[in-house]
């Protein structure tokens, strides 16, 4: 009996792990199949090319994919595993250098790949036979323009320009070199080739247009405007002035508000919310501007919890963030770690000068996004028509909060002079559910938990103790500042002289009293110390 029990136990021990092992395998298989099924594209690159003009290329492609709401798996050629690309219908190869490829698995799979292939950069002879037949013209040191959607982004310097030596088709994105135009890319069957990419806004937008077509995305594109990096201690008066100026000029804009997770019950936050409500009433849209993770917290869990509190608090105070502004790095994090920021349906992908870290990565994407460009790019773009028109992909002009009224006037001047057609961010289809709140916005307005909300501004009185008071203005500030420096210098010199005197005095003192002790004739001590003589008055 005992033996049979032992056998049963032994069998149980042998059998029990099997479902667990089987379970793990099942999960892994599911994960693999999820990877295969959920990512839109596999991006393979050769090197980061950190010391070259191509150092931002990987970042550019990644950012564009996020701006186009495409998810990707990213891997370097060296890390590529056999059969990896077979799970994808779309493959992007970014070749930043002319170095030969040494991974035979990659070469083999490449040559046998049957999906849509988007090849950027240097050709490697024999890797993709169809590519070798493209007529490439190589020109060194050229100032070029990128022409897209009727717009021309001018004065782009390219050290090593490689173009397809053919006449471009009508309406095609082109690279203009002097009086010649070359196609930005060329597609033959399943292969699309972009011979030159540098991390310049013009090339980025050009590539964006090609990728957009390649992915078969809708043709319409919007342009919005974002004032980033606003927090309670920004120049809130300038925020109000800018809002008024934009409102007066009919310019819709968004305000990138950095989520503050500390001291959110402080009076400064009440004033801040008040200003944000005012901005909303001036046709401004509030966007959560996610700062660099390095400046926030090491703990993503804590950060996630704080974000829930911050966003809930904003809604409680009548501030309705409709989207997210973030650098590309956010999309490399796992969704669970960035929650609830992933719950925004729309966002603005901010340009990031940092070189993307190497290693295998997967990205997630928002439902809809736009690519951040700076005002300088707008200034460098010419349009054949009075109205500026639109770039081929969704873009957001990033305009820093003006430091003064002169700067505000200058920025307004650029926007007005270019006759930009800016879209009101809140009229886009924005949607999110975070905590107990569901917010949606569209052309019909903003709805919170299904109910429309008014954005009109009713100033709430703030208790006198908490009311913002301007710092006192001092009279004779310049005189006292100069006087302060002068007197500090003089007093400092005097202190040094005094210290020198004290040190010198110490020497004089020691010499003096050594002399007195040695001088037996010196007998001039105070009578008070000569008690023996006091009673002996002659």
């Amino acid at each position: 009996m005992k033996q049979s029990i032992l056998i049963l136990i032994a069998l149980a021990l042998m059998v029990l792990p099997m479902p667990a092992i089987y379970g793990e395998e099942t999960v892994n298989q599911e994960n693999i199949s999820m990877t295969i099924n959920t990512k839109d594209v596999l991006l393979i690159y050769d090197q980061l090319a950190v010391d070259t003009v191509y150092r931002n290329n990987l970042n550019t492609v990644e950012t564009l994919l996020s701006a186009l709401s495409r998810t990707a798996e990213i891997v370097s050629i060296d890390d590529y595993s056999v059969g990896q690309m077979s799970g994808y219908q779309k493959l992007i190869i970014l070749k930043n250098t002319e170095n030969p490829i040494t991974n035979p698995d990659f070469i083999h799979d490449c040559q046998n790949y049957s999906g849509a292939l988007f090849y950027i950069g240097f050709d490697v002879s024999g890797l993709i036979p169809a590519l070798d037949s493209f007529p490439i013209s190589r020109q060194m040191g050229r100032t070029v323009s990128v022409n897209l959607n009727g717009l021309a982004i001018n004065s782009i310097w390219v050290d090593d320009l490689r173009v397809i030596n053919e006449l471009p088709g009508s309406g095609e994105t082109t690279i203009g070199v002097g009086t010649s135009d070359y196609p930005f890319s060329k597609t033959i069957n399943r292969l699309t080739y972009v011979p030159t990419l540098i991390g310049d806004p013009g090339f980025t937008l050009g590539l964006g247009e090609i990728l957009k077509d390649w992915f078969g995305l809708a043709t319409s594109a919007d342009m919005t405007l974002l004032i980033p990096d606003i927090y309670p201690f920004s120049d809130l008066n300038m925020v109000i002035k800018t809002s008024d100026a934009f409102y007066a000029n009919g310019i819709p804009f968004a305000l990138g508000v950095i989520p503050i997770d500390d001291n959110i019950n402080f009076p400064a936050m009440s004033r801040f919310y008040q200003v944000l409500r005012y901005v909303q009433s001036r046709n401004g849209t509030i966007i959560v501007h996610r700062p660099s993770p390095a400046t926030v917290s090491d703990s993503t869990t804590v950060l996630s919890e704080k974000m829930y509190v911050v966003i809930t608090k904003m809604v409680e105070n009548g501030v309705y963030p409709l989207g997210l502004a973030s650098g590309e790095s956010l999309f490399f994090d796992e969704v669970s770690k960035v929650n609830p920021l992933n719950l925004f349906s729309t966002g603005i992908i901010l340009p990031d000068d940092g070189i993307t870290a190497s290693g295998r990565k997967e990205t997630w994407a928002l439902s809809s996004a736009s690519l951040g460009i700076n005002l300088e790019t707008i200034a460098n773009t010419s349009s054949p028509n009075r109205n500026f028109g639109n770039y081929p992909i969704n873009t957001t002009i990033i305009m820093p909060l003006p430091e003064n009224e002169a700067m505000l006037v200058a920025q307004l001047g650029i926007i007005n002079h270019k006759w930009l057609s800016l879209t009101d961010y809140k009229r886009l289809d924005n949607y999110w559910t975070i905590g107990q709140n569901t917010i949606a916005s569209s052309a019909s307005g903003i709805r919170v938990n299904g109910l429309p909300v008014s954005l009109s501004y009713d100033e709430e009185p703030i208790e006198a103790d908490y009311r913002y008071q301007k710092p006192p203005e001092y009279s004779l500030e310049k005189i006292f500042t100069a006087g302060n420096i002068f007197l500090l210098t003089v007093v400092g010199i005097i202190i040094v002289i005094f210290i020198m005197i004290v040190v010198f005095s110490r020497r004089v003192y020691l010499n003096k009293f050594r002399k007195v002790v040695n001088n037996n004739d010196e007998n001039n001590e105070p009578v008070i110390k000569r008690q023996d003589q006091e009673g002996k008055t002659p």
Partner: protein
Amino acid sequence: MNGFDYIMLVNIFLIWSLLFVNIVLIVAGYVYYLKVEKEQPPEIIGEYPFVSIMVPAHNEGVVIVKTVAALLAFDYPWDRYEIIVINDNSSDNSAELLKEIQDTNPSRNLTVINTDNISGGKGKSNALNIGYQQAKGEFIAIYDADNTPEHKALRYLAAELKADDSLGAVIGKFRTRNKEVNLLTRFINIETLSFQWMAQAGRWQLMKLCTIPGTNFILRRTIIEAIGGWDEKAVAEDTEISFRIYLMGYKIKFQPKAVTWEQEPQTWAVWFRQRTRWVKGNVYVLIKNIGYLVDKDARKIRFDIFYFLSTYFLLLTALVVSDVIFVMNMAGLVSTSIQGFSNLLWFTAFVMFILGVFIALTTEKGEMTVSNFFIIALMYVTYCQMWIIVTVYGVFQYLKDRIKKQDSKWYKTERFQG
């Protein structure tokens, strides 16, 4: 800017100006110290001048024996000086004690003048005038009744005066005999040393000016004769007589080697009364002589008048008014908008004050100590602030006496056993 801003501006200017005046005096005083250190003590050449030492004493039984004993012990020919103690309407046993000393020293020139409430009891100036009637010396030396001069003090004072006809008087240095008693006496010790090395030595070095301190000084008999004795209305007779000497064209020299040790107040109450008297007396002398500020013939005392004026009126007013405005500003009663100086600057000024005073202490044996350094820092926030109160009170008392047309009462400083 409003009216308070302008007042604050003037105050800041005054405070810093006077601060720098005193810095200059500290450095000048130190230069004089080095000069004196290099020189040999003054010696009398030729015949010793006959000196009358006068000691006004009112109820000084506690200290008078020790004082007279010290005077009798001077390293000076016995037949070339006399001691006149004016026992001024004392109600204690001073007369008996002085008689006993006289009896035990029959061969010495020691005269005791006992006055009653009719002839005496009217203050120090009156007592000095009484003593002066019997003085035979060509030089007159004055010592307070609580003094214990060093052995050679009189010799040094007389030698200086005899050697230079341009000198009207020579003052010595006084030290605090009871400095170890408590914190107050330590404060006074530091105060007296810094005052003498800054205000006395510094002014002598720069302008050949000094103020007679009331004790341990010698002057020419001819001066007393010329000015008709001491001004009995002046409760700060020392300052008064200094001005008179200047006006006669004489200089007053500071000879720090002539040292006397005196007892200082040991309680705040006594200190307060004594200093109030000084303030009242100095204000009287200042107002009496204020006209000399614009008198072409009185150039020599202009600085002294200005110095007293700045100490008792300008600096005091600046400090008090700025403190009042500061408090009112904090209470929200007034508003000022001038920026003012940084806290760092005020802190460095504080450090400068400590070092400046400490320099005076480095000249004296046993005073260059770490504890004294910290006591100076403590003085700034306690003793110096008390001085403001004393000065305000003294000025107020003086004005009250003037309005009521009362003569200032001469308060006699209480002495302590020891």
